[in-house]
């Protein structure tokens, strides 16, 4: 343990404050996961988890609730990290795969698959959805040219609204038997979670780790602007490509299983950033963990509030999460203004 120039204590090269925040978020995620496991139609109190379980309880725990919790944590991490990566790239806290149209590109492909080839195995669909997102990303980069920040964001917004309309039209052609499923999926939910879906999503979600390690240091330099960063030896075009590949893969794969999680990619990184002011790898990691906590929290909340209803974490995130997020940011501004 040593104290750096800025007075922060560090373990190795990691600030202790970031490490504590990471541990805190991990504990919060575990507590929420435990709470989520106990909630539901089949009674499964905490005390029962320690003793022997009935067949029904065992099925509810192992085949329904645990996969849901695991999927929720993974998807939350993936979407939040995707947002954090894009925000770092355009140096704007509003960037998000949903706002840039990347998710809509993937969604269009997912819907096309559903309409044209309903029987396609899930494992084949993911790479196609990723390609859909990458096509939008490529178009975005080509149109943006050397545009930085806001220019890219505006282009993305245009892309997003066009593709959303196209997706809406496609939904009219979806097979009628899929319409309920589609509605749930569009609202953002964990109903498709199973060990099979986790096995399909897992390799894509695992991209988070190399993305964190390889892109974190570069993004921490990119805050100085593309040109200053380039003269510090940063391969800026390569970094952009890496960010796009990682952000699209993570968000498109998550989209396939949990639907669009509105605003999570903006909310989680901003909350995490406000927590400790971390940069680089720590900033990305905390953003991802915050995403997991938010999705698990939304899951617990929606199931605790409406035990009988089909739970939509996407709606809970927008209805409860977004106002709470805005209030929090406002409070922080007040606090900053007073200090």
């Amino acid at each position, binding site marked *: 343990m*040593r104290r*750096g*120039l*800025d*007075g*922060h204590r*560090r373990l*190795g*090269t990691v600030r202790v404050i970031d490490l504590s925040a990471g541990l805190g978020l991990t504990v919060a995620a575990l507590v929420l996961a435990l709470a989520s496991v106990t909630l539901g139609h089949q009674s499964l109190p905490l005390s029962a988890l320690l003793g022997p379980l009935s067949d029904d309880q065992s099925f509810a725990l192992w085949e329904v609730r645990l996969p849901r919790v695991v999927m929720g944590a993974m998807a939350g991490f993936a979407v939040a990290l995707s947002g954090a990566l894009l925000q770092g790239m355009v*140096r704007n806290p509003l960037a998000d795969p949903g706002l840039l149209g990347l998710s809509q590109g993937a969604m269009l492909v997912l819907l096309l698959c559903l309409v044209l080839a309903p029987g396609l195995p899930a494992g084949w669909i993911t790479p196609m959805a990723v390609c859909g997102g990458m096509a939008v990303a490529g178009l975005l980069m080509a149109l943006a040219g050397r545009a930085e920040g806001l220019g890219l964001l505006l282009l993305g917004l245009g892309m997003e609204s066009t593709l959303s309309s196209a997706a809406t039209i496609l939904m009219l052609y979806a097979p009628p038997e899929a319409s309920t499923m589609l509605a749930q999926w569009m609202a953002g939910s964990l109903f498709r979670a199973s060990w099979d879906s986790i096995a399909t999503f897992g390799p894509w979600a695992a991209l988070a780790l190399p993305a964190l*390690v*390889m892109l974190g*240091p570069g993004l*921490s*330099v990119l*805050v*100085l*602007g593309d*040109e*200053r960063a*380039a*003269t*510090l*030896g*940063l*391969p800026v075009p390569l970094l952009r490509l890496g960010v796009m590949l990682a952000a699209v893969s993570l968000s498109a794969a998550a989209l396939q299983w949990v639907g669009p999680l509105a605003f999570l990619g903006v909310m989680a990184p901003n909350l995490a*950033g406000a927590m400790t*002011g*971390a*940069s*680089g*790898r720590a900033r990305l990691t905390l953003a991802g963990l915050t995403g997991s906590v938010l999705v698990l929290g939304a899951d617990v909340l929606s199931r605790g509030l409406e035990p009988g209803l089909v739970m939509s974490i996407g709606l809970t995130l927008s209805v409860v999460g977004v106002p709470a997020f805005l209030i929090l940011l406002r409070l922080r501004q007040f606090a900053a203004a007073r200090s």
Partner: protein
Amino acid sequence: MLEVRELSVTLGRRPVLHRIDTGFAAGELTALLGPNGCGKSTLLRAVMGLVETTSGMVALEGRPLAGMSRRERARRIAWMPQETTCPDYLTLAEMVALAGHSRRSLLSGFLPSQAAAQEQAFARALETVGLTEHAARPVNSLSGGQRQRAFIALALAQQADTLMLDEPVNHLDPRYQYAILALLRDLAHRQGQRVVVVLHDLNLAGAFADRLVMLRDGHVIAQGRPAEVLSSERIAQAFDMQVEILPHGARLLCVPEIPAHP
């Protein structure tokens, strides 16, 4: 020698630099002078490889810069743009530490021993610009002059032997204008660094620079020692203004004529 040979730059369709021939020697402070839009910043950016050149080349000690890797270039030449962005959460110490990027490998971020060695260089850079006591403050909470010195510290922390600073005394009060230029001159004279600065103040240029390069509309119209370059005729040619040159000890003072009421 950092040599600029026959360098031409066209931005869009507008020719900005025309066959620039000049050179920057180690151990010297060179000042680029000229009116707004004459190509001073573009010249620095062309040397840094940030704008495409239509002809010519830049070579450092005989080696073309175009042949160097990005990282090697970053270890040899530090550039400070007129404006640098910085997010609100970054503290001064963290910002200056970004200078270590070109010396870091993918995994060395995990090695504390290397981090500690680099930290000494960062601490020296902050001390040099007089900001040590502010190391823990967010960069964006600093005053304009402190911010300017912070970005100079970032360039110093890069530990490059060539410094190219675009208007380094912008936003600074007179005391720091003189202090920073004296510091840069000392880096050149005592440590043999090659320092190139863009300046607007002719008197500062005359007082501190070993060499002046005067540009107008993308052409070098004069270069040499201050006594050779700073003349009423040259300044009239470059800036379209009348200046009287007064000797003051070893220095030359430029006293502009104040335009009369129209």
